[in-house]
């Protein structure tokens, strides 16, 4: 995963709340077994039906509860492949938020009023270390979980980090309680 430091550039605006992952990447594109190439299918129906227009800019500004619904990581893959590096929204759905952080797509939680200001300004500079969004309307503080920020700043591979902790997992598995669960291989 590429480390994130500063994300700067134009902002695309999708002024809707409760945008679900079925809209971000409709189900017919989930049949692919690859991880790349989802960008051209982003908001497939909404864009093709002329409901919305979206430029592939570094920043997407949108409404509350963005990414609700299905856990499909194809949604962040599509947003990233389309060109977005950061999403600014007043709130995100939990699974979507987590999925973004695993692939280095920055989900920054920003007050609705400040999201509107960035949308109006049309461009911004996001500084992850400072947790700020700087645009023509001012400098705004955004929220991000501490652990997530650390991982994104350093571009860390989460599996690698966990495996370094392998001794603790071995120890956990050696406890009698860990042997109590169902054994799927002997069904």
């Amino acid at each position, binding site marked *: 995963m590429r480390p994130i430091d500063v994300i700067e550039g134009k902002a695309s605006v999708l002024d809707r709340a*409760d945008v*679900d992952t079925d809209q971000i990447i409709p189900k017919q594109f989930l049949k692919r077994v690859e991880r790349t190439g989802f960008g051209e299918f982003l908001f497939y*129906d909404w864009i093709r039906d002329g409901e919305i227009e979206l430029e592939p800019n570094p920043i997407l500004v949108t409404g509350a509860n963005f990414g609700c619904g299905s*856990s499909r*990581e194809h949604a962040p893959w599509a947003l990233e492949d389309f060109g977005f590096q950061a999403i600014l929204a007043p709130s995100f759905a939990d699974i979507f938020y987590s999925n973004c952080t695993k692939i280095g797509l920055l989900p920054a939680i920003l007050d609705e009023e400040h999201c509107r200001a960035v949308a109006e300004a049309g461009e911004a500079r996001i500084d992850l270390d400072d947790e700020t969004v700087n645009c023509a309307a001012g400098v705004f503080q955004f929220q991000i979980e501490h652990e997530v920020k650390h991982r994104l700043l350093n571009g860390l591979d*989460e599996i690698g980090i*966990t495996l370094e*902790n392998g001794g603790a997992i071995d120890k956990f598995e050696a406890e009698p309680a860990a042997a109590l669960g*169902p054994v*799927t291989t002997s069904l």
Partner: protein
Amino acid sequence: MPKTMFDKIWEQHEVSPGLIYIDLHLVHEVTSPQAFDGLRLADRKVRRPDKTLATADHNTPTDGTMAARLIADQLSRVQVETLERNCEEFGVPIYSLGSDRQGIVHVIGPELGVTQPGMTIVCGDSHTSTHGAFGALAFGIGTSEVEHVLATQCLVQKRPKTMRINYGGELRHGVTPKDLILATIGRLGTGGMTGYAVEYAGPAIEALTMPGRMTICNMTIEGGGRAGMIAPDETTFEWVRGRPAAPGDFEAAMARWRELPTDPDASFDTEVEVDASGISPMVTWGTNPGQVVEVTDRVPDPAALETPADREAAERALAYMGLQAGTPMTEIAPERVFIGSCTNSRIEDLREAAAIVEGRRVAGGVSAMVVPGSQQVKKAAEEEGLDEVFKSAGFDWRVAGCSMCLGMNPDTLAEGERCASTSNRNFEGRQGKGGRTHLVSPKMAAAAAVEGHFVDIRDWS
């Protein structure tokens, strides 16, 4: 210090701060191929194949196709075959097409008894919350996390906040767990449970069967909740007892499980009170599960909503749904009926629907289908003769899979078609591009099939 059930399970599974051990990892064809690829690229193994179980459900045709290689749609075929190959390469047990244990991942887990109280359960599917009905901590994850669990059997997690929803009173005649959860989401909103692990409690919950409890926990994610949970009790134990994966020393297991329920004085970050006896049969009118009203209500008027954003969202939803504000919900006439999905495809759901349609006919111009949640459900239903009840009423009787819940297989709505669906999401295009979904209970869907429009099941006979 008194603890919630969530606290107990979380703390029992903390390998180190923020790193949670996973007791069961369920896998399906859509969200796993890139995770297995990641393992191969990094030369990693599946750490615990014995705590992993796979099935094919999202892509599978429901027409009786008996093997992955026979799936007509090329992309679907490749995805299911890829799952089979990955499972073989990494030693993961799989019930694919052709197995008598194949079915929707959230139906087969409880059915096999691999879903048990006190466990941590994950799957690359948001409806994993279903398994919380057993007093387990169960939640959906993305593909990167699927890879993480395959490689480490652990997951990095931020501890969610806790919410308890207490349901006083009892559900009235004709009102089902589906109505209870739809009414709850209608009240809290689609983001109302975001950031929370939610415990459903109170007399109305305790009175429910396991399938009813699963329906409720299943839809937790539609309120934004990470996990839904219900305390295990005798009803839970009786469900697990005797199933293929039930613990050998069942008495010892029950003794452990009895320690799980929330302590009397434990505190939650948020508590909500709901009077279950005041809940009516519910029907969604819009394009998210929170846009829902009682069947006796009318399609809401966007102008009456509080914020400009809500008004705009409602107007857009009505335009998509092809509905006029003020129309009585009972005048809405679906031409398709879908009974199935991980929300409502268990044997009890089918029995309830069959009791409604027995001796009746599907209305003219309506096309109705029943899709059992698993091969085992299908078999049980056929042994009881439910298939004959449905078929003689004019329903299409299908084979197990996710089917028209998400339209990744041949079962889809055509543009503009209106559907009474027992599934969990009425998002735009979810059941097919331009399709219009109304979420309801199995009873309400069955009655709509017979009458050709929604009816209040309480006074319908």
